[in-house]
């Protein structure tokens, strides 16, 4: 059992390699070194060798398995491996190259990581979202590494005139043990480049028992040193000669536009050079900019001051009346009436009528803002029909497409350089800020940095939806749950793409609504309509947050009503170990994964509950005012269970002395980063439980910064978060890690609060509810 306790035990791994984060042109130069693998590789798609299938090839541009695209070996032996996904704190920029290094027997201390620019035809899909990177790329990266290794071995065998079967790559060299001869990778680079790329079908993959890096957690992020000395380069850190600094006043109401403005006072601010209107797109317009008035200055401080001096009259458009309290009432009303049926087993209506008692819970979760520490920012340099972008974007390929389309130039003329992301959480999947920079640069004929302020980030982002989840559970005389009706009402992310979208999309319904795993005879899930009045977008874990909050709170409510232990009740509801058959669900999303490889397996869900109960000391006695809560949820095809211990004092102030989380994410690459993701998910979960709420009045967001949209700080953070990783059964496909930690935290904490105080919280955030 691979049990990790806390970071103190993770000491002593100060290994890192220097990283180059360079533009496309330098990548070409770097990889074109004499002796490196040749470039201009034909694109090969990934054939089936994998024991399991993923949805990777259904993603735009699929996967590319070719060592010549991802690996270069210099004569001095330095192996450069391309990271084609974006680094926003998950460690993916380290993990994916590490997989290649593992399979090719490269010595990690002689590996450099190079960030790919946006080019999906070349690198395959680059959307770093949906907790997909390891899940989709573990096998392709292994194949790339194995290919490179085979080419190196082939070159050495030729040089020695021995059969390739007699040589073996070991730790950065190829060895012929019969004769004791050995050659370093660097000396073989030129010959290896001449070898043909082996067919993927015939590749020999390493036996996992020989892994040196995979699954070990002993390698630090490649960016670690740069981060601690301040040289790690984020979007805002890009500086170009002659670059202008811009901030933009955007319409405060979604769908609004500038009616008139006066920039005279702004122009008087020291350092301000220009005030100009910028183009916006009518709502909804996917990720296109909102438009507004830009202030251009010699530094960001002057631009912000100039913007403060603007006078703008806005035309608010159709959403000028959006008001959160009234909207909540609308959602509640909708949740109390029938809606579009999206899952149906048995006869829920009859079963509820015939039930001995019915427990009803209505759970509300407001809009949330991502507030990544780095607000959106982008640098663009547009010259004629060419554009170069430097930006912290989750989707380099998508950014390239959108910038090209907006500027009306071919994609080949757009270079997107991906910097580090100072947090993403889904916000940076939308590249509006990069498009803004491109438009301004084109207009000004100079490189431009567009910096969003924190207030811009909070007020003009793509918010997490707002939702009412209403669950009715019918119980028979013995306390067994015989009926379950769940209505979920929330404006859909689809509304950001298409006007008038009122139903949630399959990918939203599939996040904890229609895939609800309880073993109940009569189940019905419904989705009444809800219209959007602001930009809705992905927020880490997305619809799983309100769904897990509702479903797992209800499980504990039933436990209380039937006087049973929360954990026992949860296991009873999950029921027998089985693979769910969801025949009534028309469009089961399953996170884009084939159901054969990634079925909903209640045995795995049960197992994380049992593991966390065991390791987390479920049922231990806790001091007065303390309580334990438990919750479990499958999301992003991983299984997670969390126990939270809470302490609530007589003034209603809550603290969290301990969190325990068990995760089953299948075959994994870097347990140390899994642990950090789960620790972070607890903080994000606690933020949304305690504080997170964006409200609207007159169509405008009422919050603006960390004072009125607070997030958890260190003095209120859990004293300790323990993480237990389920060792994978052989051949278990990898599953998501970045997001799944968030959903179970809120209900676990809410259930703990109930255990401590007897107060059942159904509206988040808690705010003052415990003070009364």
């Amino acid at each position, binding site marked *: 059992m691979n049990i990790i306790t*806390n*970071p*103190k035990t*993770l*000491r002593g*791994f*100060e290994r890192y390699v220097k990283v180059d984060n360079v533009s496309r042109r330098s990548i070409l130069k770097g990889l074109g070194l004499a002796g490196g693998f040749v470039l201009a590789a034909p694109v090969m798609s990934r054939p089936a060798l994998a024991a399991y299938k993923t949805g990777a090839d259904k993603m735009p541009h699929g996967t590319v398995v070719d060592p010549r695209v991802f690996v270069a070996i210099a004569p001095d032996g330095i192996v450069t491996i391309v990271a084609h996904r974006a*680094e*926003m*704190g998950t*460690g993916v920029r380290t993990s994916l190259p590490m997989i290649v290094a593992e399979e090719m027997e490269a010595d990690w201390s002689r590996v450099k990581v190079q960030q790919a620019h946006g080019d999906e035809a070349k690198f395959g899909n680059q959307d770093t979202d949906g907790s997909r990177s390891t899940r989709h790329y573990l096998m392709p990266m292994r194949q790339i590494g194995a290919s490179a290794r085979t080419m190196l071995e082939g070159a050495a065998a030729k040089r020695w005139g021995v059969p390739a079967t007699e040589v073996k790559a070991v730790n950065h060299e190829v060895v012929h043990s019969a004769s004791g001869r050995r050659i370093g990778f660097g000396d073989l680079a030129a010959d290896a480049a001449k070898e043909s790329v082996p067919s993927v079908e015939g590749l020999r993959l390493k036996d996992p028992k020989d892994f040196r890096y995979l699954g070990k957690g002993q390698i*630090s*992020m490649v960016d*670690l*040193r740069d*981060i*601690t*000395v*301040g040289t*790690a380069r*984020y979007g*805002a*850190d890009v*500086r170009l000669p002659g670059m202008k600094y811009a901030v933009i006043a955007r319409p405060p109401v979604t769908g609004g536009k500038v009616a008139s403005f006066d920039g005279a006072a702004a122009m008087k601010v*020291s*350092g301000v050079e220009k005030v100009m209107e910028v183009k916006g797109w009518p709502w909804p317009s996917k990720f296109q900019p909102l438009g507004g008035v830009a202030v251009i200055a010699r*530094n*960001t*401080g*002057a631009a912000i001051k100039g913007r403060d001096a603007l006078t703008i009259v806005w035309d608010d458009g159709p959403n000028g009346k959006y008001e959160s309290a009234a909207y909540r009432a609308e959602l509640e009303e909708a949740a109390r009436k029938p809606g579009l049926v999206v899952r149906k087993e048995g006869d829920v209506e009859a079963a509820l009528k015939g039930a001995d008692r019915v427990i009803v819970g209505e759970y509300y979760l407001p809009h949330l803002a991502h507030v*990544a*520490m*780095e*607000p959106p920012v982008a640098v663009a340099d547009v010259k004629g029909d060419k554009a170069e972008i430097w930006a912290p974007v989750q989707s380099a390929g998508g950014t390239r497409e959108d910038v090209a389309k907006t500027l009306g130039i071919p994609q080949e003329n757009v270079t997107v350089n991906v910097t*580090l*992301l*100072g*947090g*993403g*959480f889904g916000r940076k999947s939308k590249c509006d800020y990069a498009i803004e920079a491109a438009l301004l640069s084109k207009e000004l004929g100079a490189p431009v940095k567009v*910096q969003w*302020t*924190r207030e811009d980030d909070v007020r003009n982002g793509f918010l997490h939806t707002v939702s009412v989840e209403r669950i009715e559970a019918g119980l028979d005389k013995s306390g067994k749950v015989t009926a379950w009706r769940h209505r979920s009402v929330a404006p859909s992310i689809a509304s950001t793409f298409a006007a008038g979208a009122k139903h949630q999309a399959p990918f939203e319904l599939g996040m904890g609504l229609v895939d609800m795993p309880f073993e109940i005879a009569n189940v019905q899930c419904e989705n009444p309509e809800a219209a959007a009045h602001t930009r809705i977008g992905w927020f880490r874990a997305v619809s799983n947050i309100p769904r897990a909050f509702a479903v797992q709170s209800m499980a504990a409510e039933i436990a209380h009503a039937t006087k049973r232990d929360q954990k026992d009740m949860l296991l009873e509801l999950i029921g027998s170990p089985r693979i769910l058959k969801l025949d009534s669900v028309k469009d089961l999303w399953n996170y884009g994964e084939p159901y054969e490889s990634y079925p909903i397996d209640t045995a795995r869900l049960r197992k994380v509950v049992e593991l966390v109960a065991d390791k987390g000391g479920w049922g231990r006695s806790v001091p007065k005012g303390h309580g334990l809560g438990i919750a479990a949820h499958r999301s992003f095809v991983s299984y997670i269970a969390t126990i939270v211990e809470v302490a609530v004092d007589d003034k209603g102030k809550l603290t969290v002395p301990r969190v325990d989380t068990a995760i089953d994410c299948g075959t994994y690459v870097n347990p140390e980063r899994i642990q*950090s*993701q789960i*620790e*972070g*998910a607890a*903080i*994000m979960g606690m933020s949304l439980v305690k504080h997170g709420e964006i409200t609207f009045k007159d169509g405008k967001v009422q919050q603006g*910064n*960390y*004072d009125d949209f607070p997030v*958890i*700080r*260190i*003095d209120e*953070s*859990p004293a*300790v978060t323990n993480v237990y990783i389920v060792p994978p059964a052989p051949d278990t496909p990898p599953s998501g890690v970045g997001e799944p930690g968030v959903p179970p935290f809120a209900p676990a904490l809410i259930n703990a609060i109930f255990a401590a105080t007897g107060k059942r919280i159904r509206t988040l955030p808690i705010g003052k509810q415990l003070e009364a």
Partner: protein
Amino acid sequence: MIKLQINGQERNWDGDPDLSLLWFLRDEAGLTGTKYGCGQALCGACTVIVDKQAVRACITSVSDVVGRQVTTIEGLHPTGDHAVQKAWRQLNVPQCGYCQVGQIMQAAALLIENPKPTHDQIREAMAGNICRCGCYQRIENAVHLASTGV
């Protein structure tokens, strides 16, 4: 003309004397290690050390620091091996890393003032620095490690 002492070097500024130290450092002096997170002394991303104290550069104007020694992450240690920086690496503290410069500067200032802080003192002193990724458990342990060597 305003003359500033930053990381032991003299820097001149003849623009707006009210410009915040943050934007002066980042945009005018090219010292981009110091980060912007909120602009209102709410998050600590912009923390620098002025003389011996942690200061939020976003609400400090360039004229406020005339005659004082400003230390940014670039000047914290010549080889980047301050005890806090080493502890941060040893415990793999960062996730995205964006807040970490501010965290490190705040921790370094704390240890000047209180070389052996308790866990409660660490939590109190670091409470002005937000980490949205949620690295707090490791931050707390790393400050402790930097101060005690264990």
